[in-house]
């Protein structure tokens, strides 16, 4: 298998599964779990980006499981960076390449820089560095946050991305207290999109929709400047389900409306995949219980807990200014003033 490595080649959008590049740049023999969706994100990420890419990985499953004991599954250059340092590593590498090219020590060709981090390394520890990188508009880099909703590598500790009520080793269920974790998950892509107007591309994706994910990665790399993609990765280990259902759970996360797929491209929001169909009213949002009941981490949920979860998701779709992106709304009296129509999506009358 020869890998085409044309300098300065553009990354066209992928039209369908038959158009997905065949070359593997992240090969088998990584010590991930059976059914690891994050490994699939790595595979899709580098498939979409192509061979002229440098990948930087902060500590987490995708570092520890993949590159243990003096071996690697990466065909492209890969470097480990510390927990929380994905943003800094992306910025530094991109700046370094730029200087080397300016000084003529490297040919002036396009080299993609992708830094990945888990939800612990990105949303907990590395948020500051990611935020800083997203303000440096002169350096091209993509930060990919693969979110399996816990510190899965060290055997499932709670992170700020763990959903409401889920069991982790830090939030076990018990007789005195059924739910140890009662905080709602942080809205990272929305927060970053709202806070970094000069980043030209920020997206939320899921590897269950592979072509959508790959196209988002390509768009992020093509548009230039600092960009960010957040994927939700079902984790058979921490979510406690049979590994064969990884794809199905990713689909359910999107179809229940818990994880909206969208991109903010040049400051314009674009809903993608089933999320778009839900917003357009072409598809009905599935009840969250279909998603929750499939996972051992929610096995202790009572009807009341499910109702609360459903209520929060409904609020996101019906009350938020933009579902899944902007969590506040605008006072009635200021609607005209700010020229914003806050009619909830489900109340918008469809033209006949």
């Amino acid at each position: 298998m020869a890998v085409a490595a044309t300098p300065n080649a553009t990354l066209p959008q992928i039209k369908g599964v038959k158009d997905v590049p065949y070359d593997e740049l992240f090969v088998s023999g990584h010590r991930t779990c059976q059914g690891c969706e994050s490994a699939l994100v790595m595979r899709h990420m580098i498939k979409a980006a192509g061979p002229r890419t440098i990948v930087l990985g902060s500590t987490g499953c995708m570092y520890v499981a993949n590159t243990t004991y003096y071996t690697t599954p990466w065909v492209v250059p890969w470097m480990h960076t510390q927990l929380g340092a994905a943003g800094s590593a992306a910025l530094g590498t991109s700046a370094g390449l730029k200087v080397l090219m300016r000084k003529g020590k490297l040919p002036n060709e396009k080299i993609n820089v992708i830094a990945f981090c888990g939800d612990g390394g990105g949303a907990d520890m590395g948020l500051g560095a990611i935020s800083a990188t997203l303000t440096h508009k002169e350096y091209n880099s993509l930060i990919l946050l693969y979110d399996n909703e816990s510190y899965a590598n060290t055997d499932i500790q709670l992170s700020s991305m763990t959903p409401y009520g889920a069991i982790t080793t830090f939030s076990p269920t018990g007789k005195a207290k059924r739910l140890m974790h009662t905080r709602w998950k942080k809205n990272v892509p929305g927060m970053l999109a709202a806070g970094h107007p000069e980043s030209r591309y920020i997206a939320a994706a899921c590897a269950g929709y592979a072509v959508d994910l790959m196209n988002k990665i390509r768009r992020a790399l093509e548009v230039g400047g600092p960009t960010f993609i957040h994927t939700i990765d079902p984790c058979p280990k921490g979510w406690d389900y049979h590994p064969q259902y990884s794809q199905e759970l990713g689909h359910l996360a999107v179809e229940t409306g818990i994880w909206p797929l969208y991109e903010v491209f040049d400051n314009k929001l674009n809903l993608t995949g089933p999320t778009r169909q839900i917003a357009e009213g072409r598809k009905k949002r599935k009840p969250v219980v279909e998603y929750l009941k499939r996972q051992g981490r929610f096995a202790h949920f009572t009807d009341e807990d499910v109702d609360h979860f459903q209520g929060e998701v409904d609020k996101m779709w019906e009350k938020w200014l933009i579902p899944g992106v902007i969590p506040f709304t605008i006072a009635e009296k200021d609607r005209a003033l700010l020229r914003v129509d806050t009619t909830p999506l489900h109340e918008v009358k469809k033209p006949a």
Partner: protein
Amino acid sequence: MATTEKTATVAVKPGEERLVSIEVVYRGIFQKTLAQRICRGVVLASRRRNYTGTAFARYGDSPERNGVPAKQFAVVAPTDLELEAGMAKYEPAVVDVSVAVDDTLVKGIESWAWYGRQPIWKPVRDNGFVLVTSNSTPDELVQQTDKAERPYTLAVVPGGASFAGLWVYKDDHTDYRVLGALARLLPDWLPIEDVKASIRESTKDEARVVSVQFGYDNVRTREVKKGEGTDAHEKLQFEKPGWTKMREGIIVEARKPGERNPFYKKYTARTLRPVVNFDTCIKCTMCWLDCPDECFEVTPSGHYEVVYEACIGCGICAQVCPVKDCIVMVDELKFTDNTDKFVLYDKQPDAYRQWFTEMTGLPAIGSDKPAATGGD
């Protein structure tokens, strides 16, 4: 407390006051709690005779990954001093009993990179025991274990592999049946009365005591002589590079395009393997696209063949395949090798169809060209 039970006697003969080590080989995460409960059960039962012991997991397995073979240990000694002397290891090099709580583990285990594929009997001492939970007979299991380098006894306690998740434990008494079987194999170290009393005291549940007795009564053994077993499995062994061979800054050579990681193959994580009905395959690419372990390769005819050396048996391909019974997950114990089966389909489709039916128990339908033999 157990200290009231001073009447128990130490059955070890003078001069044989050594420690006993038991390892439990299991599927990471799926059987983590089960392995913990077995190791803990051994130590608690032996404490009834004022033996001292400890149960621990192997450091190198942490963090565990779903399906990847892992080990936990129970080490018991008559005195604290003996135990301390024996505990100065993080992984016992020699064990008296190796317990495999999933029968597909008898095909060998590869726990991490450079580990190689190790026979299930590797750490078992001369004339020690390999105890397997299985619905197969010892004779059937010997067909799948590596050729023995020294004699051991293969014991089987009836029951399928008990798999569960990290948070919800499947309490199907597998741990109690294994403890009962261990009592049968090591009567001097783990008398059945002690195991039963220990379980009765800690669980206050007679049904569990009955399961212990069931394991004790129903364990089947078979002597395995040196040289018995199979040669069919791949020899996967590595010379580890010394520090002089390593590059500065922990730099590792990247993989070449088209290559797979040769130092870690991961196929021993598999309990089921996908078998493809190439006749009904519609070449939709979904199995290839959604495989997290890059194990599908396209053939000139546009089919996707499984590279069994890379497949870890997660079952995603069978789940995402839109055609019913096109990809079927089959018990790993039915196979002796990792050879690519597409070659057979390509050369002798009818022989492949026969093989498919034999392995999956399903008719190889979809052959739109009528078979030469006619029939129905």
